[in-house]
């Protein structure tokens, strides 16, 4: 990485490539490939009514728990996703918001936000999910050529703020 890479805003198209790929891997239950999009210090957060990490959350995973979640899905006996939901999501209204401040491990990561609408079909029921998703993207060195192109980022943070987080929610066992 050069200094210019670290300070100038990332190419919007590269960001979109990453975000769209992340969405597709989640939709298609490509668990191992999706997990590789994360940094080792990643945080995956789906707030509940209070939107406070010191309170109950729908999901609040560090990398260790995220790995457990993926491993459970991969057993094929995570019954809430066996058989898996059919999923398609649209991610839009994407904005490059800025960079993570402070001097924490995420400092300097690029903040990207977007809206999403997702349709889930499971056991003949159709559910619409929607909300605001915020990513922290960390530029990384390009992967070896044999790995698929992922835009040169890893996620250090993904927050999914559901529009109905104050309501009763049905089971949400897929990767949102």
């Amino acid at each position: 990485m050069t200094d210019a890479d670290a300070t100038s805003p990332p190419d919007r198209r590269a960001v979109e490539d990453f975000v769209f790929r992340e969405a597709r891997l989640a939709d298609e239950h490509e668990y191992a490939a999706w997990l590789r999009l994360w940094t080792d210090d990643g945080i995956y957060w789906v707030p509940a009514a209070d939107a406070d990490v010191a309170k109950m959350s729908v999901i609040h995973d560090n990398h260790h728990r995220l790995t457990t979640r993926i491993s459970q899905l991969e057993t094929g006996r995570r019954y809430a996703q066996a058989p898996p939901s059919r999923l398609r999501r649209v991610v839009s209204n994407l904005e490059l918001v800025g960079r993570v401040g402070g001097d924490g491990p995420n400092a300097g990561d690029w903040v990207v936000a977007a809206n999403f609408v997702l349709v889930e079909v499971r056991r003949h029921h159709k559910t619409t999910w929607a909300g605001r998703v915020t990513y922290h993207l960390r530029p990384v060195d390009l992967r070896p050529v044999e790995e698929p192109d992922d835009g040169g980022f890893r996620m250090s943070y993904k927050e999914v703020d559901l529009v109905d987080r104050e309501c009763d929610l049905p089971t949400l066992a897929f990767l949102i």
Partner: protein
Amino acid sequence: MTTIDYRALIEPQRVHGSLYTDPAIFADELERIWYRSWVYVGHESEVPEPDDFVLKHIGPQELIMTRAADGALHLLSNRCTHRGNAVCVQRSGRAASFRCPYHGWNFRNTGALLGVPHPEGYGGRRGPDPATLGLAHVARMDVHEGFVFASLAADGPTLRDHLDGAADELSRLARLSPEGALQLTTGWLRHRARANWKFLVENETDGYHPQFVHGSIFRVAGSGIGELYGERSAAVTRAFENGHSENDLRPEFGRIGRPLAWFGTTEDRVPGYVSAMRDRHGDDADRLLTEGAPHVMVFPNLFIAEISIFVIQPVAVDQTVQHVTSVQFAGAPDLNARMLQQCVGSVGPAGLLLADDAEMYERNQAGVAQRRPEWIDTRRGIARERVDERGYRVGAANDETAIRGFWRHYLRTMTSPAGPANGSPDGSTAVEVPLVHNP
């Protein structure tokens, strides 16, 4: 009046599938169980200061739990006495009074009508008689270890009589706080399932399912929970009176013999908590820390699973919302942080455990819509059930003793002419099953 013959639907070893699907039975349950029995509503620690309030519910009925200026708790119907509008639309907050947005009627957080705009229209300068137009209170309210229960019936057993042996389990949980008190401060998840509420209740202390439904997470997380319910487990399933039940895991945790093994951790991870418990309980601390927290279902809607507190809310014959929060102890910040993280990982819509439970409730509900074979089998362990030294029926860790206890009380309640019946300690019920005395 109902003409449902519950005695024909509930037998000692099986119950009829229509109990989960018949809207007339659901309507009858609301009247006889939810609007008459003691039902868990909320915890005192959710409204710690005067003028705090939080919205709660008994089935489809919405209640405002308030703490008035004098510190007293009130459970009020969220319905203006004028034209029925909701006087409160905020989940929680602080308010000395609630003003109805429709015509401005104003109620103190005790429920008392403070005043109405333009009182002359009611025939005098003071407006309508405030004594008859306050917000409706629940008929009875009582508290045990900070757990607030309500009954919408003026008469019936006392809360203490209703809770029976489950009262000690709630006390056992509170004793695990270095200050002897719970603090439910972490908010709630609300998980909706397309299933009848009884499938949730029966599942809570069913020790037969964890090895199967939760085998995936036990395996990848290296958890020993499945073995607690295995065929070699020394744990027991216990049916208290009045439909309450527990999975008593103390024999297994006692066998392991290590403080905090019940929470899957060790003393060095939570040193502040352990030392605070030793300061309070002295030589007894090791026993308390080894035996751990209860796993108890309080009929009809409060379930405590060691570190998580669930409240079951029926909303339709095939729709139930399960509310859940983390156990938090006064005076235990280090343990509390770990319990919250563990609870968040386990429960709710995405929980590594509860999402799979909900999947099972929903598949059960779809299953009982199939008309054959009509019945659900509840006989597991009936031949090895015994009566313990306190007179309660106990079965093996994975027996259906709790499920049968639930249905005995349900049958009494649904067939009692005058409100919820209280069980007698000798276990005499409308449904007699053979017992093996082996205290």
